[in-house]
């Protein structure tokens, strides 16, 4: 089963119930499903100053207005975000969180962390089990082939490793994901990523620009936003896989 929450309010009781039901009823790889309209899941974290829920809310609002069923998720683990009820049933998927090359983190409280890694070399002890997950675990099954777009919304998620590889995005591509975006440098905690996210999903899912064009249109919006003083906050350093993929009309990938 799948219990999804609005992210703006998460009273402790709802949180506790969600965790209980999630732990009880959510197998790590529940059966994937195809929904109509197609699903889009965004995962957010809350930790000190880093509260990425507004980014999830922007993304959800835009894709929902474009015909997807969008969800803004908080208080989930990385393994849940990758499970049969989430990534494996999604047309669009994204995480906003602290990150680095080869991994992006999720936390709800700063005490319990999990991460989606590209492969076991980045996972603690080489273990891709819950609460973590590795994209490489899904390559042979191609169970993510219906995902049309993945967003890795954190610092250096697209920084090339020592051998020149974009680890997260190459792993996603090996899983059958049609397109993805990461960032090659630091990106700010602040509003630039929120503006970029809102704008990117408008241009890609509502207006119908392809993924690369939508990213550059979003950069133009960030550049001209008042109070940013023409500072992109790092979002100009997006790295695009599947540049010609179009996310309109709402549909699953190939």
């Amino acid at each position: 089963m799948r219990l999804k929450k609005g992210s703006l309010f998460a009273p402790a009781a709802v949180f506790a119930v969600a965790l209980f039901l999630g732990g009880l009823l959510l197998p790590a790889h529940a059966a994937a499903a195809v929904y109509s309209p197609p699903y889009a899941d965004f995962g957010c974290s809350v930790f000190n100053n880093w509260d990425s829920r507004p980014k999830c809310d922007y993304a959800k609002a835009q894709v929902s207005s474009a015909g997807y069923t969008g969800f803004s998720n908080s208080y989930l683990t990385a393994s849940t975000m990758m499970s049969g009820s989430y990534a494996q049933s999604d047309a669009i998927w994204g995480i906003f969180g602290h990150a680095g090359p080869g991994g992006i983190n999720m936390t709800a409280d700063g005490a319990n962390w999990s991460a989606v890694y590209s492969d076991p070399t980045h996972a603690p002890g080489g273990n891709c089990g819950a609460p973590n997950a590795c994209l490489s675990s899904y390559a042979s099954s191609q169970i993510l082939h219906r995902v049309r777009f993945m967003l890795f919304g954190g610092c250096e998620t697209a920084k090339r490793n020592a051998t020149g590889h974009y680890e997260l995005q190459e792993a996603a591509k090996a899983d059958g994901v049609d397109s993805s975006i990461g960032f090659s440098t630091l990106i700010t905690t602040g509003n630039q990523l929120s503006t970029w996210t809102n704008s990117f999903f408008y241009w890609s899912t509502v207006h119908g620009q392809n993924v690369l064009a939508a990213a550059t249109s979003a950069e133009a919006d960030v550049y001209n936003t008042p109070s940013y003083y023409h500072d992109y906050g790092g979002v100009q350093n997006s790295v695009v896989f599947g540049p010609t993929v179009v996310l309109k009309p709402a549909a699953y990938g190939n």
Partner: protein
Amino acid sequence: MSKNLARGLSIIVVGAVLAVTVVGVAAASGHQNTEPNKAVDPYFAVATTPDAAIAAVKAIVETPVRSLAAGGMAAPTQRTTDLTASGPYDGDLFRYYKVIGRDVYAMVDVHDSHVASLVLANCAPTGYSGSSISPDKAMAIASDYLAAHGVSTDSLAPVVVAKDRGEVKTFQVTWQKTINSAEVPDLRFVELDASTGIVFVMRNASRPYSTPPAASVSANDAVSRAEQAVIGLDGPAVTKPAFSVSETKLQVAFSASGSQQLIWQVMVRRTDLGQRADAFVVTVDAMTGKTVVMQ
């Protein structure tokens, strides 16, 4: 519990939450639309019409550009019959109309009708052939593109940067005027496909300004102030936090009422917190030292 029932429950939960929470989502439901600010910058006075804005965009995208691209490849043409203008909206330096069509996204300055930002969506690179034009060629193409559209680069020196955008490679050519080491509102920018040389982004960010004074706050002082400003925001205020600074630039900016400012922009991040550290952009007033953390 069935999945449909679970979905129904989740919808009820979401609905209940939203019913009592009127925060943010309404603002998120549309594209970025910053409404005009009440404290009026005189430069923001509207002196043109939406139709004039459309005409300005058409004048650019319908003007043939001499092909300097590899193999003489011609850029795709843009449909202009579907262009519509909306706004005005407040930008960082100017108030603008958005001009949007299937192939085009532009911002047109309401003060003087100049096209300040242009994205040619159907010209965006589709892949990387494995071979690239040279940086000199990229600069020549960008210069030619601006000249063909009457955009001057006089007295501005270009900087060419090879941009790795993953499965596509581009060149970004920037002409940024500086006075007393400060970036002033006089910039041209062109991004083009490194394989084909086809231009797909152009910016012309300019507005009147006064010659900025020399900064009273040094770059080192600005960085120190920025570091102090972020201590405690994303981790414990330890005795000796470590930082990395990935950007420091001095630039002219304008308040909402149009008064000119001189600011440092510093991008700083704690390095003693590992991946769980935030990166902040801190604005430091280059005359007074006052800091504002952009959040």
